[in-house]
């Protein structure tokens, strides 16, 4: 085998929105859906940052700058496919029709959150309209799980694919190694999407590994690797489409490195000014994925200032009303500490729950509600 990493990441949208000889396979409707989803990601991100700064939610993870990776990838997949996202993948859910209010329930950790507020914000879990696997904080653990889920598809003869999304830092995790190795041997229908956004918190991607980029890591597992311009939504769409086609044809997994940049801090707890060089940030601001896509749409005659205002207002309206609704939704009840540990409540958890319930009532705590321990 002979491996070459592309000297330049694969891209479709060129200077001034031109696609050169590339064919655009998305319909106009889909193109608009991509763009509007990117705007919604941006609105969601922006609103969450403000909610966090004003103390109304505890935490968020900036998604600014990586919208094209998320949305381009999602647009290449079907609702019956299985997503194993990272915490920085708002757009994958939004593209496929998860309503911002559902995500806001999680951001506020209320009782309508799938996880009943047990997880930190940005740790979503959805089953409808897409299988968007419950996000976990430990880096890389979901990667072999994605391979396992794909095995179930293979065994049942379904042609669904599994998308596993992770960061440059994630490639150093144990899960990356076992997942790619198993997927290579099993020829798993999995797309490994490495979003190289320049940083793992404060560790720059070139101190994360000495390899020549991240796509080349596929060679260690017999998994083809491709490098894609992650700020180009159409390039992302095409790369993921091709990988999905290969996977559905039974030809196995692909590793995609999407080269992009994290335009905010790692999270709301992080101060990136301590380590991110200002010039690099400015350079990447020029390459903004929304702007890039807008240029393309403009060339196509699909974008105007008026449309932008309308779409943006609609996005903010959806997100803000979602936030409002989530904020006014009641918090999780005390019994949610004890439920869902097992399918059935065991003896010892019943006793602990009853004791907690009695104490909360004695303290006049509203979380306990009235009556007896309901489990």
């Amino acid at each position, binding site marked *: 085998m002979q491996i070459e990493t592309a000297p330049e990441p694969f891209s479709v949208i060129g200077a001034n929105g031109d696609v050169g000889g590339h064919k655009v396979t998305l319909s106009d409707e889909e193109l608009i859906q991509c763009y509007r989803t990117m705007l919604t990601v941006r609105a969601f991100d922006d609103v969450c940052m403000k909610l966090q700064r004003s103390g109304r939610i505890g935490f968020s993870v900036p998604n600014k700058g990586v919208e094209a990776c998320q949305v381009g990838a999602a647009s290449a997949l079907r609702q019956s496919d299985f997503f194993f996202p990272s915490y920085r993948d708002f757009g994958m859910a939004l593209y496929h029709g998860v309503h911002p209010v559902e995500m806001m329930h999680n951001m506020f950790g209320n009782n309508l959150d*799938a996880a009943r507020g047990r997880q930190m914000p940005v740790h979503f*879990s959805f*089953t409808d309209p897409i299988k968007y696997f419950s996000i976990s904080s430990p880096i890389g653990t979901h990667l072999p799980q994605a391979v*396992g889920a794909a095995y179930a*598809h293979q065994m049942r003869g379904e042609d669904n694919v599994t998308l596993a999304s992770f960061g440059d830092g994630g490639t150093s995790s144990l899960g990356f190694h076992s997942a790619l190795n198993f997927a290579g041997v099993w020829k798993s229908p999995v797309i490994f999407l490495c979003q190289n956004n320049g940083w793992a918190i404060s560790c720059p991607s070139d101190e994360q590994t000495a390899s020549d980029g991240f796509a080349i890591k596929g060679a260690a597992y017999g998994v083809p690797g491709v490098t894609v311009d992650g700020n180009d939504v159409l390039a992302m769409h095409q790369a993921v489409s091709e990988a999905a086609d290969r996977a559905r044809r039974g030809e196995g997994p692909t590793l995609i490195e999407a080269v992009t940049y994290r335009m905010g801090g790692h999270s709301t707890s992080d101060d990136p000014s301590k380590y991110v060089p200002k010039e690099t940030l400015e350079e990447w601001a020029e390459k903004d994925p929304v702007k890039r896509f807008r240029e393309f749409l403009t060339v196509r005659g699909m974008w105007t200032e008026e449309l932008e205002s309308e779409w943006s207002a609609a996005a903010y309206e959806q997100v803000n009303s979602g936030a409002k609704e989530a904020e006014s939704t009641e918090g999780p009840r005390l019994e949610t500490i004890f439920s869902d540990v097992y*399918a059935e409540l065991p003896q010892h958890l019943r006793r602990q729950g009853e004791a907690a319930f009695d104490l909360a009532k004695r303290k006049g705590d509203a979380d306990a509600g009235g009556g007896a321990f309901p489990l």
Partner: protein
Amino acid sequence: MPTLTLIQAVNDGLKVSMRQDESVLVFGEDVGPKGGVFLATEGLTAEFGKARCFDTPLSEDGIIGTAIGMAANGLRPVCEIQFQDFIFPAFDQIVSEAAKLRYRSGGQYTAPMVIRTPYGGGIRGGLYHSQSGEAYFAHTAGLKVVIPSTAYDAKGLLLAAIEDPDPVLFMEPKALYRHEKGEVPEGHYTVDLSTLRTVREGDNVTVFCYGSMVPVVEKAAAKAAEQGIQCEVVDLRTLLPLDEQGVLDAARKTGRCVIVHEAPRFCGYGAEISAMIAENIIEYMEAPVRRVTGFDTPFPNTLEHHYLPDERRVLDAIEEVARY
């Protein structure tokens, strides 16, 4: 009814399960053509094909990580970790992932799966082929921990574990693989998880044990009976979630308790049984609650016979609490 060894019962349980449910599959290191290093999976690839029983690359993280994904997507994986000592590379997948998936997704995603693994000493395996790590897992909410000590229970508990909606760590006492034999019904039956087994009834001293220590305790109890000390011997079988009420009832019955396991003492599983007694029924205790355990050292090779609790050590403890 056929008489099977404990390992044959495991093998039979796997076959019964795979015959009746095609979503059940078995994988791990060397479980395919070789049939596993202890032959627990012998004949499975031949009968069920390579898609349902196969070898994996050498990665416990990969084995358990992929099993979680399979389970979350409708399969019923029963994976094998060759020795419990080698489960630690997958500790993160077990503790952070399998155990917490239902909770963190509000039940949207779950991990009904079984991890089978041989544990314990007695085969001259030294530091890394002898350990008893049950306490690491029994401290992990969301996980179930099951340890059989008879052939009958091995098959019945294994089938119950495979059919359970939650992840189960199924630890097999390798010292008993071929030494423990018993009648095992053909076909399907289950032994309920979270139930105790009374091995022997008695009014003087209650002895709690599980897995490889059960036959050791039985022998010690027989010797004790010769001296007129009648032991209630309880095989815990499911360590998590434990039938706590059953444990307390058995402890209260005699007011004199001994707990036996081969794992190290400090923060070992026995501590929980003892603490439970001290917390709930201390007023019924007529003697110190004694633990007979492995030492708080790594597991030695040449001297493993000194490390492992034997009949003599158990009997000493029984006599001591009986006479207290």
